[in-house]
Structures are given as structure tokens and as C-alpha cells.
């Protein structure tokens, strides 16, 4: 589903990602572990081009996201992202946070359809075979549908009563769960998690991990950068260990944790486990 080819990222003289080639298949759950500064977050952020790669390609559904001619916004709508610092929109209520992007995107699509209809209306005057009119969704219906969907998602995580609140009043765990459903509201094909539990109180980690697990069980393709080894072992189909900008070992969690081969991985696991 995502194919990374020769991905390289350089900041000044520092090489953060060094020629990474990797494929993430549909339905696969990949956990990325490694010491800090190993480039795992940068790797994840390159997957939806939040960081522009210095060179190399990232193919998502056949399109090269690193290519500047590709409309990255269209692709990003199918790639959900969850941040370490939650990054809920502070000026929007919880409900608006979840429904904002779906509403704006649906409205934009409506405008595009409207423009096409007008153009077709003109060109149909000269055509023998008339082009069909594209269906236009009512603006109100767009909003209602997105709001309904957002409420459904909020109910699912048990935060429907917080719909009218602003993010500043919520706990970290609640914020992160809302950030996850915000990404889910776009019906993504892949979800990227950038250390989703690192900024949380230990008490709140469980509720967020439970939600991620639920989403994983529904068959979502996922890439998770995490320090929660237990969680990686439980959820991931494949664990990657990164160090110094390279993926130096990967495999099924049982094998990688049970029988590490690379000395750096052995050293890392001996410290964190």
C-alpha cells in the first residue's frame, strides 16, 4: 500500500534517514521502535510528506507523494495521522475538530462538481452525446452528515457529552482519543501514529492504547512509532528497529523481541525491557 524507495532525509550535514526502502502492505500493522534520534518520527512524517524527503520516493496508491506535481492534499485525506502532542484545533470545539475536515473537503468537492457541471452545461451545447450532470449534495446535508458521523465517532469513544467543549478543558487521554477519531472521520486507508502515548500520564496510556487496538482489530493499515514495547508486541504484525537513520532489523514481534540478532537491538532491548 505504501512503498518507500531510497528515502533520504538530510538536515544540513546530519543524515536523518539513510536510503530506506520499505513496503507496507494493506492491513499490516507495523510498529517502529528505536532509540531517540534514530529517525523513526522523521520516517513516519515522511510517509505523508509532512517532512519533505531530500530524495527518494514514497508511493501511495501508485502516486509518488514526494513528487511536487502530485496534489499531496488529496492523498493526505486517505492517510490519517495522530501526533504525540495531540494537536487538536484549539479554536474549535471537540465536535468541530472531528467534523471540520470532512465538511471542508465535501464542500470543496461540491464546488469542483459545480464547476464541472457549469462547464459541461456549456460544452453540451456542441456535443452530440451529452455529458451527465454530476450530483450535487446539499450544503446543509453535507454539514448534517459530517456532524452525525462525528457524533457517532465521539459516542464510540464515550465522549459525546464533551462535543461542545473546547480542547483546553480535556485531559490528555481524552484529547488523544479525539485526535484519533478526528483522523478516522476522514475514512483513511492508513493510519500513522507518532508516539501517541508519549505525552500522556501513565494512567491515561491504557485508554488510548485500547482505542488504537480497537482500530487495529478492524483491519486498518497502521504504522506506529512507539516506545511501548508491550503494545508493539501485542498489536504489530511486524516490528522495525531503527537506528541512525536505517532500519537495521525487522520481523514478527515474537522473533524480534525473543531472538534479537543485531547487537544494537540486543543492547536497546536490554535497556528498555
Amino acid at each position, binding site marked *: 500500500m505504501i512503498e518507500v524507495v531510497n528515502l533520504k532525509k538530510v538536515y544540513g550535514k546530519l543524515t536523518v534517514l539513510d536510503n530506506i526502502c520499505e513496503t507496507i502492505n494493506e492491513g499490516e500493522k507495523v510498529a517502529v521502535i528505536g532509540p531517540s534520534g534514530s529517525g523513526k518520527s522523521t520516517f513516519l512524517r515522511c510517509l*505523508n510528506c*509532512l517532512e*519533505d524527503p531530500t530524495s527518494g520516493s514514497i508511493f501511495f496508491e501508485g502516486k509518488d507523494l514526494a513528487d511536487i506535481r502530485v496534489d499531496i*492534499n*488529496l*492523498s*493526505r*485525506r486517505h*492517510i*490519517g*495521522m495522530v*501526533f504525540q*502532542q495531540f*494537536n*487538536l*484545533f*484549539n*479554536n*474549535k470545539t471537540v465536535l468541530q475538530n472531528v467534523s*471540520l*475536515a470532512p465538511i*471542508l*473537503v465535501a464542500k470543496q468537492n461540491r464546488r469542483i462538481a459545480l464547476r464541472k457541471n457549469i462547464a459541461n452545461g456549456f460544452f453540451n451545447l456542441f456535443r452530440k452525446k451529452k455529458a451527465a450532470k454530476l450530483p450535487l449534495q446539499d450544503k446543509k446535508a453535507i454539514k448534517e452528515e459530517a456532524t452525525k458521523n462525528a457524533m457517532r465517532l465521539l459516542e464510540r469513544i464515550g465522549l459525546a457529552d464533551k462535543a*461542545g*467543549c*473546547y480542547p*483546553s*478543558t480535556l485531559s490528555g487521554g481524552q484529547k488523544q482519543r479525539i*485526535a484519533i477519531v*478526528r*483522523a478516522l472521520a*476522514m475514512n483513511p486507508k492508513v493510519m500513522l501514529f507518532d508516539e501517541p502515548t508519549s505525552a500522556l500520564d501513565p494512567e491515561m496510556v491504557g485508554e488510548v492504547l485500547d482505542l488504537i487496538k480497537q482500530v487495529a482489530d478492524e483491519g486498518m493499515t497502521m504504522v506506529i512509532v512507539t516506545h511501548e514495547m508491550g503494545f508493539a508486541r501485542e498489536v504489530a504484525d511486524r516490528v522495525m528497529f531503527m537506528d541512525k537513520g536505517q532500519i537495521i532489523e525487522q520481523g514478527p514481534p515474537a522473533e524480534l523481541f525473543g531472538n534479537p540478532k543485531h547487537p544494537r537491538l540486543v543492547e536497546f532491548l536490554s535497556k528498555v525491557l
Partner: protein
Amino acid sequence: MQQKWDVFYEKFITYDGWVTVVDGLKATLQIAVLGLLIGIVLGTLIAAVKVMPKTNIVTKIFSVICDIYVGFFRGTPIVVQLLIGYFVLFPALDVQIEAINAAIVIFGMNSGAYISEIMRSGIQSVDGGQLEAARAVGLSFSVSMIKVVIPQAIKNILPTLGNEFIVLIKETSVASFITVVDLTKAFKDIGSSNYEYIIPYLMLAAIYLVLVMIITLGVKLLERRLARVDRGR
């Protein structure tokens, strides 16, 4: 004193001096309010250009143009800008424009330069994660800015923006350089008609003071309203 007051009363009420004053007040408010609006729009655009990631040549060129613009308008006095605009630039471009409209445009462009800096600091005070989150759900740079970043930036800079409005309303007192009859000019005319300046000028100062106090109050109320976001509901 009684006599000075009588002289002023005669000019102000009997000879309809107040009509000029009301017109002048209108002109002052027009220049300040419309100028501020133009300034906010211009300033936001310039600030957006300045914070845009400079990845290609076009954004770099825009950035340089904005630098020159801000440099010029911050580097020369507003009076000079008014004179150049009204007596040199507009005639040279063959633009027929009323003095007050010229003043609105020039004051707007002037405050745009200042607001751009205010706005830039406001945008930069918003956590970078906000823009990232908006981009990550597939919104374009401009939509993310308009819907997420700029509303938060405006909340942060509201006190400074109110300050800019106060400065602007006081600066309009030089609009008479290009024949606009503003509040200051109106009172000046009343005073110079009979060489009694004390009452007109004190009154002028009082009116500016009241205007500024009203603005201060308005900004405070607006701030309180926007702060609801931080308190929850």
C-alpha cells in the same frame, strides 16, 4: 473665561460650527476604521507570505516584495506618504480620487505594514502542530491558515491590534495635510476663525480621549469573549 466660552458658543452653535465637527468626526472614524480593515487584510496577506515555507523562487520574490513594502511604509513618516500618494502618485497614475478616499487607502497601506509584523508574530505564536494537524487531514495551506491558524493568531494579538487601532485613530489627525477635513482640522478652523484656541483644542483632546476609551473598552470585551475558548464554554 466666560467670554472665551461665549465666543466658542457663538461659533459652535449659532454659526453651525458643530456641523463641521460632526463631519470631521465622521471623516476621522471613516479613515481609521476602513484604514484598519484594509490594514488587517494587507497585513494578514503579507504575514502569510512571510511565514510561508520558502521553497521556490516565486515565494522568495513575494517575500522580497513584502520586505520592500514594509520597509518603505515603516521607514517614512505618514505625512510624507500622504503627500507623495495624494500629490504625486495618484496624479501621476491619472487616478481621480477624493482626498478622503486617498487618505483611507494610504492609512490602510501604512497600517498594513505594521499589522503585518503584528500578525506574523501572532501566527508564529500559534503552535506549529496546529498547522501540521490541519495539513495532515488534507487541508491546503491557505485553508489551514484561514480556518485554524489565523483565528488563533488573532486571539493572541488582539491587544496589540487594539493598540494599532488607537495609534491609527490618533494618526488620522494629520490627514488635513491632503485637504481632508477631519476632526482636528474642524476644531482648528473653529479656533482660527476668532483666535480663541483653548476651548476648541481642549474639546478636541477630550473627544480623542473618549474615542480611545471606547475602543479600549471594546477590545477588552472582545478579548473576554474570545477567552471563552480557554475557559471551556
